[in-house]
């Protein structure tokens, strides 16, 4: 940042920096560590977590300094309107790639549910395979009886929503509450945005803090649900295709909520430090778009994983 030029007609091209390659180093160590950890577990060897932890720390620290640097550059007036548009394009298409990531898992859910499980049960032209391998398998969704229960334990129960008429059961149904919480949080984060536009810092802090709290509550309820599934329902990752799709879809969504909550918390910290102006709040906006995205994914989850 040798020259904080005020000439905003010039697109700011940052000088050489150490951040990116250290992110690459951190990621490399992190995934190498996770890989050897998993392989050690598989082989029954006492796993070492050292590399994983070092990589994680390098990654987190570097990202911290990197984002701090970008924020500094913005407050130094280096970021002109055109560069902000680059940020907007960047974030939007990043979210699109996340949508496609979830689509892969939704695709797996639809394919197994509509086609694979039915074929195993003797439907369609490919019936012979199922008849030959597991003649007793009766297709259903949720799959509570696996084709081969000796290899994959049957889940005791599913997470399926109660029938529409059972009002009492619905009020105790955690996923419904989680839906309400997440939908509410989309509104609160929007109110926080409006507060920025109105230069109302108190409201900004309150609505943003409220959003973070809702995110945390969602996560706590989700953990509660997982504990319930594992301990009381016998529904686990290795209990056949229903458990597989259920935990990967809700699990990756939960991971994204974690990330989103953390990003919003960082924005809250920035808001408390007095950052964000009506026309200069990209960090906040990116965080809120991400939050709306995890919200939309949850609505799809609620419909296709829990209710239908």
């Amino acid at each position, binding site marked *: 940042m040798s020259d904080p030029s005020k000439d905003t007609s*010039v697109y700011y091209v940052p000088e050489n920096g150490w951040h990116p390659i250290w992110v690459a180093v951190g990621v*490399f160590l992190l995934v*190498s560590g996770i890989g050897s950890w998993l392989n050690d577990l598989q*082989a029954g060897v006492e796993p070492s977590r050292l590399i994983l932890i070092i990589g994680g720390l390098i990654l987190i620290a570097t990202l911290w300094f990197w984002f701090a640097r970008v924020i500094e550059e913005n407050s130094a007036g280096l970021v002109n309107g*055109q560069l902000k548009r680059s940020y907007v394009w*960047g974030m939007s*298409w990043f979210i699109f790639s996340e949508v*496609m990531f979830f689509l892969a898992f939704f695709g797996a859910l639809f394919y197994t549910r509509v086609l694979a*499980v039915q074929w195993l049960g003797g439907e369609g032209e490919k019936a012979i395979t199922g008849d030959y391998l597991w003649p007793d398998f009766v297709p259903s969704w949720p799959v509570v009886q*696996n084709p081969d229960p000796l290899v994959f334990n049957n889940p005791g129960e599913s997470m399926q929503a109660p029938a529409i008429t059972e009002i009492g059961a619905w009020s105790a149904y955690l996923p419904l509450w989680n839906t309400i919480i997440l939908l509410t949080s989309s509104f609160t984060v929007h109110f926080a945005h409006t507060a920025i536009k109105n230069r109302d810092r108190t409201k900004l802090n309150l609505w943003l803090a409220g959003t973070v709290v809702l995110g945390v509550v969602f996560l706590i309820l989700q953990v509660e649900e997982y504990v319930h599934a594992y301990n009381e329902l016998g529904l686990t990752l290795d209990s056949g295709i229903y458990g597989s799709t259920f935990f990967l879809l809700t699990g990756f969504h939960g991971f994204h909520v974690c990330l989103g909550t953390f990003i919003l918390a960082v924005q809250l910290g920035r808001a408390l430090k007095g950052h964000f102006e009506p026309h200069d709040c990209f960090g906040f906006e990116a965080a809120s778009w991400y939050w709306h995205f995890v919200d939309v994914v949850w609505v799809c989850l609620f419909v296709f994983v829990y209710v239908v």
Partner: protein
Amino acid sequence: MSEASHHHVPAVHDDHHHGPASGLTRWLFTTNHKDIGTLYLWFSFAMLLIGGTLALIIRAELFQPGLQFIEPEFFNQMTTNHGLIMVFGAIMPAFVGLANWLLPMMLGAPDMALPRMNNLSFWILPFAFSMMISTLFMEGGGPNFGWTFYAPLSTTYAPPSVTFFIFAVHMMGASSIMGSINIIATILNMRAPGMTLMRMPLFVWTWLITAYLLLAVMPVLAGVVTMMLFDIHFGTSFFNAAGGGDPVMFQHIFWFFGHPEVYIMILPAFGVVSQIIPTFSRKPLFGYDSMVYATSSIAFLSFIVWAHHMFTVGMPLAGQLFFMYATMLIAVPTGVKVFNWISTMWRGSMTFETPMLFSIAFVVLFTIGGFSGLMLAIAPADYQYHDTYFVVAHFHYVLVPGALFSIIAAVYYWLPKWCGRMYDERLGKIHFWLSFIGVNITFFPQHFSGLAGMPRRIPDYALQFADFNMISSIGAFVFGFSQLLFGYVLIKAIVSGRKATSRVWEGAHGLEWTLPSPAPYHSFTHPPKVVEAEAHS
């Protein structure tokens, strides 16, 4: 490669125009699109040589029937890693390197839109490939399930090193996603005034569309390897029918990624030859608009044809018919392109410098690969061709004299702009003819052995295939070693080539040719005004 040169740049903003930093940190910490482009291109050349070495090990083993040099288990690791290294390490990074070098210069931009992320996109790759290649030295050996890593070969029956393979794929995917976000932001946001969408050079257009394909399918690849990881380590049953999953589902998800991936490797090649052919025909590109629409149509169709890779797995008849006809439809926009390239050459005053030779060879040989693709698209015929050397011949025709030839053509064409020096035309032509003859001797006989029934991915074969395999292996060694000549031609040009003019080629059009050669370290701090004639060739 690029020397800092200030004379072209307005003096007012000279403080923004540092030359490159000195020493190693220039390359490690760089945010400059030209430096990063150079890194990508040399990286991909290194991967080409490594992947090529694996290919030559395969061809040496197949020189004669019987087992000569290597064990079948090791042979499987060679075919797998050859494919993965060439697809993800050689072809894709080479095109990203070209995009880095060329997009800002073609659009009149100072640099890529997000320069630091650009550095990260590149530097993930050497780590990812170190991880992937290191699997070959792990206990139990490297990935041995083919580059398509079908479950359950890649899950239940995979060596332990598959875990690292999965993470390497994750890292490559992250690199590609960041790279394509950067390319999209650059193209949509960094165009100089007057550079409307329909004035963009075709290389820019094809990369814009390719970047969307990458964004749409790399996350799906990440999803499918994640499911593999969970099947292997956490007991899920996505690809195991005993738990209600389906190994065929792996193929569906993989090819939903895999088919657009094929076009990711060929659309930028279309862009490259659409720049080169007009230059050496001294005519504007015929049918520019239709080229844009054809590219978009191909991209759209690439999402609805994936199951033509799986005709023999047992799909419902309606599915086979749909995927067969949808696949054949791709021949229409592709035909438009080939027609346009030929029409561009028609009655042009053509000259045949090395980039043009590679481009013409591209048009002819890629079309052969396209025709064999049409044969494979016919479901009942595919029952016979599936998993034979005919398929190997088909996709090597589109990838080697297709994608790779276009990359080589691009390097010859723009090298004078990058380093300010000309390559040795006589050596370039020798390189071309060796490559052209080598590639055809290698892959043309594989059509015949495939139609006669020789299966792919085997280290030994029946005696009746011996002659074709011997010819094929000789061609492979000719082709492989002539790429060392390519390296020599490049280094010779960079070190001691004759100085290039700024226009370089008499018939060249486009903004990059208005810059001096070598192009200054920062191209356009202040955007130029674009007039129609300079926009695209």
